[in-house]
């Protein structure tokens, strides 16, 4: 079943007198439960695509349909609520709120939606991610690997239909990288979550169901 459909996406940035065509007619389809990786060189437009799919930035043209909802036909408020309920985000630099504890960071999407915390689900996630002893710590007291686990927990706590991961292992050593990727895969299978991951590491990308390569704003499927 088709979950995400990106059609003819174009994005142009204007910098001084220069125009940068970050995305050129990008088309992408992701099925429910799929693990898709997008790889490419730095500056090729991977993160831009991710931000547009998350509804954080708007394209110059094109359409993003997630779970039968066209994102850019929604108002800013509707889009925000949609993101809060349907999307989970994991960044390379974690993007945890520095002044909140680990537990508060994880629960924030639920709290903002006034939803009850599903204690068993929370316990399950933090146990899987091995952060059960760090719940009262602040992000700056954790290692990079631990912070990324917290970010993953936050991305999954509200049962999103799509998790967007922007180079989630880019800041980690090989040991942590492997653990994190295994965890993402495991959790996506267990919770039937679709994952769209950006990485420039081909070895990591190879673990996905499908791989796309972004090259100067154009997206092409990788054929082995």
């Amino acid at each position, binding site marked *: 079943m088709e979950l995400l459909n990106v059609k003819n996406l174009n994005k142009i940035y204007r910098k001084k007198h220069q125009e940068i065509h970050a995305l050129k007619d990008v088309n992408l389809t992701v099925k429910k439960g799929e693990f898709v990786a997008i790889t490419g060189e730095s500056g090729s437009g991977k993160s831009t695509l991710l931000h547009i799919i998350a509804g954080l930035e708007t394209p110059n043209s094109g359409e993003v349909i997630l779970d039968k909802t066209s994102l850019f036909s929604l108002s800013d408020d509707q889009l925000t609520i949609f993101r*809060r309920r349907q999307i989970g985000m994991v960044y390379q630099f974690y993007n945890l709120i*520095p002044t909140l*504890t680990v537990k*508060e960071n994880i629960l924030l999407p639920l*709290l903002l939606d006034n939803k009850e915390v599903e204690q068993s689900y929370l316990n399950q996630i933090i146990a899987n991610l091995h952060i059960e002893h760090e719940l009262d710590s602040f992000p*700056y007291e954790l290692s990079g690997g631990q912070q990324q686990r917290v970010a993953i927990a936050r991305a999954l706590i509200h049962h999103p239909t799509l998790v967007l991961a922007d180079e989630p292992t880019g800041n980690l050593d090989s040991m942590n990288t492997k653990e994190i990727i295994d965890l993402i895969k495991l959790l996506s299978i267990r919770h039937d979550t679709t994952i769209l991951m950006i990485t420039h590491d081909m070895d990591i990308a190879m673990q996905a169901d499908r791989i796309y390569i972004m090259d100067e704003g154009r997206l092409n499927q990788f054929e082995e």
Partner: protein
Amino acid sequence: MNILRRYIQQTLRTNKQRTALSLLSLILATALLFSVTSLVLASYRSVNASVVQSSGNYHVEFKNGTQEFVNYLEHNLKVESLLKVQHLGLSPLNDSFNEERTYLQVLGYSKEAFHDLGIVLTEGRLPENDTECVISEAIINEAKVAMDLQEERYFQLGYRVSEENRLNDEAPLTLNERFVMENGTTMKIVGIISEPSMDVRKPYYSVLTLFNESNAYPMDLYLRYHDLRTINETTEELADIFADEYESYAYNEQLMALNIFSMTVSVDNHLLIFIGASIVLFLLVTILLVRSSFANTYINREKHLAILKSIGVTERQRQSMAFYEGFLILSLALPLGILLGVVLLQTSVHTINQLLAAISVNAIQLSLQHEWIIAIGSVLFVLVVAILSVQHSAHKAMKKSVSSTLHSNDEVHNMQRSYLNLEKKGNIYLKLIGKHIRQNFKDYDIAFLSGVLIMTLGLMLSSGMAYFRESDYLDINEHNYDVQVKVENWTYPTALMTQLKQMEASNTVLISEVIEAQCNDNENILDEYLQQYGEEGFVSLQLVSYDDRILKNYIEENSLMSRAEMNEMLEGGNIAILLGQVYNSAEQRFYDLSESDALNGILLENGSQLAMKIVESDVLITGLSSREMPQLIISRTLMNQLVEELKGIRTFMVHYQSNDSNRLARDLNLLVQGESVLDYDVVNANATLQQGKTITTLLQLLTYGYILCIALMMGFASMCAVSTNFEYRKYEFILYRIVGMRMKNVRRMLAAEYLLYFVSVFACALICSQLLNMFVYHTFFASIGLKFFVPRNMMLIMFGAGILIGMLLILFASYKVKHFSYHQGLKNEISLL
């Protein structure tokens, strides 16, 4: 180029907004320091020159002093200078075009007196001996009498008499007066002078010659002391020792008021504290502005410095970096600051002069002088504060542990506990607001301080202005009169009063009458008052009446009695309003006459007794009532009955409104007063007000300007702090947005946060300003019986302005959050952290 210098240059170039803010702060600090100091100095000099011009450069005048007194004063070490003026006599000016001024007053001035009594030579030269003279230009322009330079002219010298009584030289002309000649002198006119301000509204014009010690004319002595602080003691000592060697003495209060040293030492000290505090506040605000601009720059750069430290930058290199940065910014800011200061100064002087000129043609005009010593002083002050600030900020940033700085977030200050308290139920947004307030309140201390300071100053200014308005005895605006006649007598001066009431070309606006009485109602008079002011069991009081219109307004405005009681009073009933407090300035407290609702045993001068029902009040009628003696305000009807009974009145006052107050005052002065009149006084309020109005306006402009400068500097300092803190806050809001916070809630959180800060600032400002208000009121204004003033309107305006500013800030902040560039910004912010 040194790599660290390149780093500084690059950082300044990259952080354009921050660099611009630092530059603007320093430019503003330098410009305001230079222009405000220059403006205050220019104002002081101009007012001083104007006062010297109008009242002379002396402290005390001894009228008609003897030669023996002069000999003593010339050798007294406390006396800085002695000016001597001989009265040679009046001389008739028969062909004068102005019928109100038909004399010349011939005076002999010592050389110093020509300089220090405000004489301005417009043509020719000053006299070199007593056969030469200078004449007032008004003789030619106003009296239209032809007198030429180098002309030798004979002057009859003598005095005026009326009904065989010698008249004062300054007394207005009367119909039946004549001139008595004593002697005469021939003098050569060698110069023309501007009309001395002392001649205005006198019946003569001045002719001045050089003082000749061999002449035995009456002599006025004008003294300047070395030490103004002992002016009272020294003058009284001189007055006592040489009691027989002069006629009377008077202080030059205008000049002394300008030099802050008024007649009361306690007022001196308070005024000095007030001025000192204003200067200190201004310098502190300048320091705060300079410091905050650098402090915030370095807060933004803590991570950079930690990295530099980690790769081995030494303390010496750090110092050199800080100096270099200071040098780069200051080398631009200081010249631009002085340039802006010059422009500000010129604009302010021009604007102030235009405003003053619009008030009066004879208004003070500020002379624009660029004092380079002030420019150098301002530059040095800002330079020293800036260098110390940049060093201190850099030192503070470098002192932090490298690992903790690089690893932590700048917003997490010693935070050891969670804030959202997940165990407790509650609105998440309220919890987040609480978290922000607790975490960030300290970071906004400059903004908080600025807000409190600006609001306190504004509220204080409002109260201060209200007190000055109230303390103006002849309150022309409130009562709409410009000339007042006060007649004191024992009988009822029917003829004079009829004339006063029927003065043509004028509009009588208010008549007030006073009769004096005594009271021995010991049951109802408080013992304390009786002990303090009683004489042989009696206390003195006044029965006062005003127009019914005034009385009615007074009763209604202050809700003093019911409508029925008021009607009874207006119809002549024995009901009075007691202003029963007397201020004792020695003890600095009020004494109450009575707390009773009746006062019996009120004895009038004819021996009759009155019993009155009393309504107490301590609200004065501005310009009419006072606290020198208890007053019973009665109705006009009752007063008429009492006057009829007494066949006399103590004081009778009439207030007029006129198109030509000078003419009306002169006409009133020319009225035949009659024998029963003890004292007859005409006060031209318009002229009095006009004289002081330009100085008052100048003071108001300077005060408003001062507060505006403080507000501007504190506003800038706040902006530096708020913009730095908002960079972090913005990032946090962006993170909230990523996990799904709606813009509506972002705005609500911002609004709630602002409201909380604003309410705290407003509350603090109210408390501070009202404490100050109470201090100022009890120190300066309670003694003259003014009401305590709460500036309600200003409070409302400030509250409204605060809410408006808040709305604009919230709109700006939410715009920045909503239009954040995730593509570029998020990565930059993350790398900064």
